[in-house]
């Protein structure tokens, strides 16, 4: 659905069902240069399981207008304001990549409404190399292409896909091309500049789940494993794929998330 938020047209994927604020809401936060389409196979799945689902296109991403947020903190404040505007009081945040950093910051801001945190291919820090930072400014399309190829495991190279007929590379590139050209550079700088991760992770009081990828080139497994050590009682799973876990291993990811959610109060 499209809403007017902070003076800009803002798109929220709802998994093909209407939003019911009285239900538990799963709020999916996309990664750098992505949009709601990185959760194609999660949004509908959980909406049809009876949850309320929102997958916001962050400003200047996907179908949303507005100016890109310029830091992880700004992203988190934007999401917080959105949840307040929508009057959502029972929320599980599910971040992918950069979305995990935003989730960490939201953990500081959201008070009673936050019920759990789910980190997909996450860490407490996402340093970005200077080459990619520069390229995202000079040639965002090329930078996107590189991220799409780095980001996928062997299934990307081999055009293997659980969704019959789909190509991770072709689809991934075009998803990133839907964003405003400046979106990627602010995302990557936001990730690179973020330094609150350790404190934020130690501060998590709600139930937490982390699903990491064995062949992750963007947020390496080693970094993810250090991250989950910082969180008290973080349920952790490792799947055999690349960084784009939601499209590479949709069924496994959905089933892990689903059983975690079913244990929540």
């Amino acid at each position, binding site marked *: 659905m499209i809403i007017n938020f902070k003076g800009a047209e803002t798109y929220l994927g709802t998994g093909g069902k209407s939003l019911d604020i009285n239900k538990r809401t799963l709020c999916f936060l996309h990664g750098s240069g992505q949009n709601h389409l990185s959760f194609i196979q999660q949004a509908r799945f959980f909406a049809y399981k009876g949850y309320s689902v929102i997958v916001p296109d962050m400003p200047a991403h996907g179908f949303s207008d507005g100016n890109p947020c310029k830091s992880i903190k700004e992203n988190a404040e934007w999401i917080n304001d959105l949840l307040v505007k929508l009057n959502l009081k029972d929320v599980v945040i599910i971040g992918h990549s950069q979305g995990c950093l935003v989730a960490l910051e939201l953990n500081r801001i959201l008070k009673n409404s936050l019920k759990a945190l789910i980190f997909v291919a996450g860490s407490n820090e996402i340093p970005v190399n200077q080459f990619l930072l520069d390229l995202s400014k000079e040639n965002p399309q090329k930078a996107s292409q590189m991220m799409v190829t780095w980001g996928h495991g062997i299934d990307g190279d*081999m055009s293997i896909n659980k969704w019959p007929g789909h190509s991770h590379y072709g689809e991934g590139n075009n998803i990133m091309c839907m964003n405003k050209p400046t979106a990627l550079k602010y995302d990557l700088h936001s990730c690179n500049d973020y330094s609150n991760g350790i404190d934020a992770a130690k501060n998590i009081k709600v139930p937490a789940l982390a699903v990491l990828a064995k062949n992750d080139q963007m947020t390496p497994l080693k970094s993810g494993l250090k991250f989950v050590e910082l969180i008290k009682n973080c349920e952790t799973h490792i799947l055999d794929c690349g960084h784009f876990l939601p499209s590479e291993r949709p069924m496994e990811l959905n089933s892990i998330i689903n059983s975690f959610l079913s244990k929540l109060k």
Partner: protein
Amino acid sequence: MSENYKFDTLSLHAGHIPDKETGSRAVPIYQTTSYVFNSTEEAASLYNMEVGGHLYTRISNPTVAALEQRLAALEGGASALACSSGMAAMHLVVSAICSSGDHIVASSKMYGANINLLQHTMPRFGVNTDFVNPNDPEAIKSAIKPNTKLVFGEVIGNPGLDIMDVPEIAKICNSKNIPLVLDATFNTPYLMQPFKHGANIIVHSLTKWLGGHGIAIGGAIVNGGNFDWGDKDKFPTISGPHFALGGISFWEEFGPSALIAKIRAEGMYNFGPSLSPTNAFHLMQGIETLPLRMKKHIENTHTILDFLVNHEMVEWVKHPDLDTHPDHEVAKRILPKGSGSIVAFGIKGGREAGKAFIESVKLASHLANVGDAKTLLIHPGSTTHSHLSSEAMKEGGLTDDMIRLSVGLEDINDITKDFERGFKAVKKLNK
């Protein structure tokens, strides 16, 4: 680290890795109509398009999917869908995008069935087409109306071998927010990848060079994922609410793969032109050697062009790689590896000479197909168009002395020897 495999490697591998259970190196033929659900929940999630997977072979099948994913990789597209024939692919695209009252701009020089579908069949359903010269981008631009929903043509036209200036035409379509749909059967992704030149949707007859062995009919649609379907008034079938699945908007839910999702949910469900898994396997075997075959097709074509151009019995030769072809410059620019292996030539002596030639050659097969590994010939004047007068044929851009040749992979000296036999018979006739 990603390997970023190149074209030749993808031709062999894309879409399949050996499965863990059996280790089968070749893509298995999943000769099944349906798939056991692990739970009612799983069944529902497939029906609701919550996640990808197979539920019934009319909609998708693992062997067919391997072919689709190979094609998506070779074309650099977001997704692909394979179906029962090239014509089925064409009809699926038109019927997914257009509704009664809509308009199409199409090339006037195309394969007969492509023309017939748009000229005679679709108007019965309220979809009308204006045909324009494919090598005149300005004419295409002026033919676009407010209700135009797609521009269609063949990269290399059959049988006239006109070449579309794809980058120029793509610019026009892009500026008018209309998808450019191209039949890329004659070029295959080996000679040219239309998405790199700005096209949005590709249809293939896999029957021809992609399959390459004249053993299976098949077609495919490859979706570039590079078109914005967001205008709900203009493209209601893609971005407006669907009649099922809770009024899903394919554009919102599937973005770059919206068109393929729409075609699976409507065209494959309601018309059902599915490709058999066994044919998908045969076609994929062909694709494994596409780069090798295309190289040899082009090499042989260039040798035969030399032979024909210099032959005393040949009146004229038409191929875009010859500098006498009106589209030669465009061909050099967009098809630098060569512009395919179809050659048209005229035999001195008209219709009777053509007939005598065809009846005397032994190695080249006289039949109605193109793109086989074997050399094929047809003389429209004594077969497909024999009911037409010379004048009527001319109006359709054909002449009665014309032979259409699909150059195969034989030792080219055996082919030229075979042709000499044909020319000898014509000489006898002319005496």
